[in-house]
């Protein structure tokens, strides 16, 4: 008797579920192409690298499984930690600089409405259109004590030309290259979100007696905070993974830029110069974890501004 009742209740539900299942199967079919690419180019390499990071391979001793030993080594490795500290310092200096310039430029361009606005928008964005390697190579010539314009400029005002590639000044030189390249891009993002603000709000503000500066700081900035969060997140991830510019400049300033200058450069040197592929995988993974924590932490802290909450 009881059994019958249960069956009676169950029967329609089962058919309904199988209907959903069938529809889901069709859905899976549609995303199969994506899944294949996702698995082949992302999941599999990640898993492979992670497996590698759990083994240790030495020149004289061969490969053996060591579990988390490599991670313990990485987080006590002064070269890796030094690199982390360096990119953290880059983030602290570079991101506010880029963002300050981008924001200022976006606000100015937004309040202009002539051809000047269009032209300066294009000019500021231009560096981003140059491939990073080309940009860095170009700067390496500009910094060159012999070919660069600095010597001529400093001679004009009677000062001694600084060496932009010396150990003490390479940090500032790198900040300059990155700021030059990325400020324009961030400016365009910020500018786009400024254009999305309803002009009626400005009108209302003006009627209430707000001036240009007040509109900028009290209305525009709070209203674009979500795109600011996005821009900072991009900049943060990019800075922690700093690689291309110092690697290119290394060809002319290898004394000021040791192979372990940033964590990514360290991983590259370990794998391709010192053939320590396993430890390189560990460094890459450790950096990935730190980038994840860093960007996740930032997004959590700014969840109110970004509208993610």
């Amino acid at each position: 008797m009881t059994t019958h009742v249960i069956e009676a209740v169950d029967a329609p539900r089962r058919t309904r579920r199988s209907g959903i299942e069938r529809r889901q199967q069709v859905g899976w079919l549609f995303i199969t192409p994506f899944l294949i690419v996702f698995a082949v180019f992302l999941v599999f390499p990640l898993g492979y690298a992670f497996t590698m990071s759990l083994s240790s391979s030495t020149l004289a001793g061969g490969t053996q499984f060591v579990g988390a030993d490599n991670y313990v080594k990485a987080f006590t490795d002064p070269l890796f930690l030094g690199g982390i500290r360096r990119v953290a310092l880059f983030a602290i200096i570079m991101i506010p600089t880029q963002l300050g310039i981008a924001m200022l430029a976006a606000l100015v361009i937004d309040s202009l409405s002539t051809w000047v606005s269009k032209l300066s928008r294009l000019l500021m964005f231009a560096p981003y259109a140059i491939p990073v390697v080309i940009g860095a190579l170009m700067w390496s010539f500009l910094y060159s004590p012999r070919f660069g314009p600095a010597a001529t400029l400093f001679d004009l005002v009677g000062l001694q030309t600084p060496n932009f590639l010396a150990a003490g000044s390479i940090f500032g030189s790198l900040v300059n290259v990155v700021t030059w390249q990325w400020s324009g891009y961030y400016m365009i993002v910020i500018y786009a979100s400024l254009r999305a603000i309803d002009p009626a709000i400005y009108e209302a503000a003006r009627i209430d007696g707000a001036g240009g500066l007040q509109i900028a700081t009290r209305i525009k900035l709070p209203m674009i905070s979500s795109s600011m969060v996005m821009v900072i997140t991009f900049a943060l991830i990019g800075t922690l993974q700093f690689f291309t510019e110092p690697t290119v400049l290394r060809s002319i300033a290898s004394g000021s830029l040791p192979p372990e200058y940033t964590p990514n450069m360290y991983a590259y040197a370990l794998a391709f110069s010192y053939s320590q592929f396993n430890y390189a995988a560990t460094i890459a993974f450790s950096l990935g974890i730190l980038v994840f924590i860093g960007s996740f932490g930032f997004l959590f802290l700014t969840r109110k501004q970004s509208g993610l909450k």
Partner: protein
Amino acid sequence: MRTKTIATLSAAALAVVTLGACSSPGAAEATCTNEIVKPDATQVSVWAWYPAFEDVVDAFNNSHDDVQICWTNAGQGNDEYTKFSTSIESGSGAPDVIMLEAEVLSSFSIRKALVDLSEFGAADVKDDYTEGAWKDVSSGDAVYAIPVDGGPMGMLYRKDLLDKYGIEPPTTWDEFAVAAQKLKDAGAPGVLANFPPNGRAFTQALFAQAGSQPFVYDSAKPQELGIDVNDEGSKKVLSYWEDLASKDLVAVDEAFTADYNTKLVDGTYAIYVAAAWGPGYLQGLEGTQEGAEWRAAPVPQWDTASPTQINWGGSTFAVTEQAKDKEAAATVAKEVFGTEEAWKIGIEKAALFPLWRPILESDYFRDLEYPFFGGQQINNDVFLDAAAGYKGFTFSPFQNYAYDQLQQQVTAVVVDGSTTSDKALDDLQAALEKYATDQSFTLLD
């Protein structure tokens, strides 16, 4: 319902096919830079970056019926090594024969990437090379490559500049220092020479002249390594250059940058302490100062009573473990630069310094006059003696790391002045010992 399923399936299938087409599986056979003359013969793939190498390859292919070279330039030095290293790790993708500098042979043989050529008739060609050249490619009884070109060192100088300031070409390092001071006192716009902090092999060669033997290594006992980089000789040499650099008597510009290349030929450096490939390098640079007169002289000595000859660079052909036909690959390694025809191309078009004795000891090579050096027979005057006096050298199985560490210490000494030469080399010793231990080597005393 049925039609719908079929439509969905075919849409998904189509998408998969389209994506598959993009990634195009079954990569095509490696294409050769040169033309294969005899398509039926065994092909041996070769990576090399010699200038004018295509002519050498053509000469080989035309004279061999059973073996043909398929040549690719996979980059110079570290660019090529990076690719080779990756293909060793992945187990495929390496060429059959590869051009390697002598200094990296141990780094690859320890990874079991190179074939011991003593099993493939290396002994047959041993007598074609000098003792020093052969020692560079062997480790114990094993032979990991066939020598090609060398870098015996000499001193290239600007005769016009030295004459102008009344300086005789220095024959000892003491005279060299005096000359540097004299040039500065005379108010010359340039300096006597450059001591590149990223000299690496150059720095190591100068150390070796004062007796440095940094490594003891035999591939038959790959777990054992002797390290001695803080010996008296090395310390003497580094403190010598530290002294000159601190008085601004020599420049400390990084080598192989655009700035350095210009300074080499525009009269900033009056002397270029160079290897035998240096003249070729100089002639390839642009912006040579008008009226520049280059001459070559033997490298300055510490003790003229017992002169020591040194070597900077030089390359070899090795057969990789991934080679499909090792016998054919060994034939290529042994014979590609084993003819006079190949060497005339190598010497005249690529400015290589031959290690192959039939040409090295020929009258042709000895009497060759170099217009760049005002018709001087630089081989006869300088480089042949330097090559004959070279005794060979043992490098470490992690030479790239050792050089990176050396470069950091030398930079700290001569550029930043943040450490002294004695302490720098002691620190280098400690760093290399630690690394060797981390890499499971047993340290020899």
